[in-house]
């Protein structure tokens, strides 16, 4: 039952989680004096968490136009997490006057800050930042009407196109069993830049989305497995007078 609630919680929003924290603190008696937490922050990593994006895997199975996967890894340094994502994304789309396809790999690197400091299960409510980079091929075959050539068939492609962008992230990580966590990452992607193309302006950038949209949203639902590198200390207790 505990695991059921954990999963349910992981579908929740970040904002209520923050609100709950704030309310808990404000409800405490003003007369009570909390002892100053004298335990030093331990920046030594406790383990590496490896993850995969379930949405990409499911979409690859059910959507004939999309094929992709994404793996993630993070390492904790006290409340800070160094994160790396690596993925593949290919799309085959029919467009109004023809076809478009692309395929390529991408990576993201960045950091998250956990706001649930004293959680014994190391659950996370986090905010973070990512730098993303993608290398991909794209092509399009289509028909276009010209004054001199009605329904003229064209085929254009580029290989080795490179793009980069930035992301602000937010999400949850909830421990559901021993070394298993689930969670989601909402991504606010912005400032895409592309280079290395000549025949086609990028339309869809693997890892980012529609290039023309200078702000784009992304969402991952992830399952994590933690590989411990040292025995974890228990979080410090708060004594009240």
């Amino acid at each position, binding site marked *: 039952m505990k695991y059921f609630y954990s999963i349910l919680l992981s579908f929740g*929003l970040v904002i209520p989680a923050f609100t709950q924290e704030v309310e808990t603190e404000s409800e405490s008696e003003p007369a009570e004096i909390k002892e100053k937490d004298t335990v030093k922050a331990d920046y030594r990593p406790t383990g590496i968490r490896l993850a995969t994006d379930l949405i990409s895997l499911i979409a690859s199975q059910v959507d004939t136009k999309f094929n992709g996967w994404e793996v993630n890894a993070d390492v904790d340094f006290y409340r800070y997490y160094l994160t790396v994502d690596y993925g593949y994304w290919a799309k085959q*789309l*029919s*467009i*109004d*006057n*023809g076809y*478009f396809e692309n395929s390529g790999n991408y990576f993201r690197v960045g950091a998250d800050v956990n706001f649930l400091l004293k959680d014994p299960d190391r659950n996370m409510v986090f905010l973070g930042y990512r730098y993303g980079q993608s290398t991909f091929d794209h092509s*399009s075959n*289509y028909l*276009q009407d*010209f*004054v*001199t*050539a009605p329904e*003229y068939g*064209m085929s*254009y492609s580029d290989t080795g196109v490179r793009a980069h962008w930035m992301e602000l992230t937010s999400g949850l990580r909830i421990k559901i069993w021993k070394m298993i966590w689930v969670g989601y990452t*909402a991504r606010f992607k912005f400032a895409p830049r592309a280079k290395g193309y*000549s*025949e*086609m*302006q990028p*339309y*869809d950038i693997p890892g980012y989305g529609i290039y*023309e*949209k200078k*702000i*784009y*949203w992304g*969402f991952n639902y992830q399952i994590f497995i933690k590989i411990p590198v040292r025995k974890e200390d228990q979080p410090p207790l708060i004594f009240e007078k």
Partner: protein
Amino acid sequence: MALFFSSCFEQTDCLINNTNILKIGLKGRTLGKDTTVTFLSIRTLEDETILYENKNLSKVEVPLQISDTVTTVIFDYNESIVVSDTVQSIFVSDTLTLAYKNQTRVISRDCGAYLYQLDAYIPESTFEKVRVTSSILLTTVTINLEIFL
């Protein structure tokens, strides 16, 4: 959350403004003002298409090659020159070569893909003075280049 979903399903407007028609403005050599010239013929070198014949024109529209990145246009006309206080008409054949880049842009899945011709420049010309005013061909652009005659 509402913002998240509305952003994902946002529709792009089909603002398609590409064209392969190069618009050439004719200007007077001395004053630089709009001028009109009687052309015996204007034709493209690559496919030998005659675009205009015996026409009085102040603006010339030339369809650029879509399967190539170079289009050469030949302008035949009579020019008046003064020789020993008498005005004489001489036959002139000028050539203008325009180089450009063909680039596909997928506007959206609903709108489709379109060819844009951009980064136009003049690698060769027998005209005395030619100036590129807009290096991308768009329906919204009125003049791409000016020829001073």
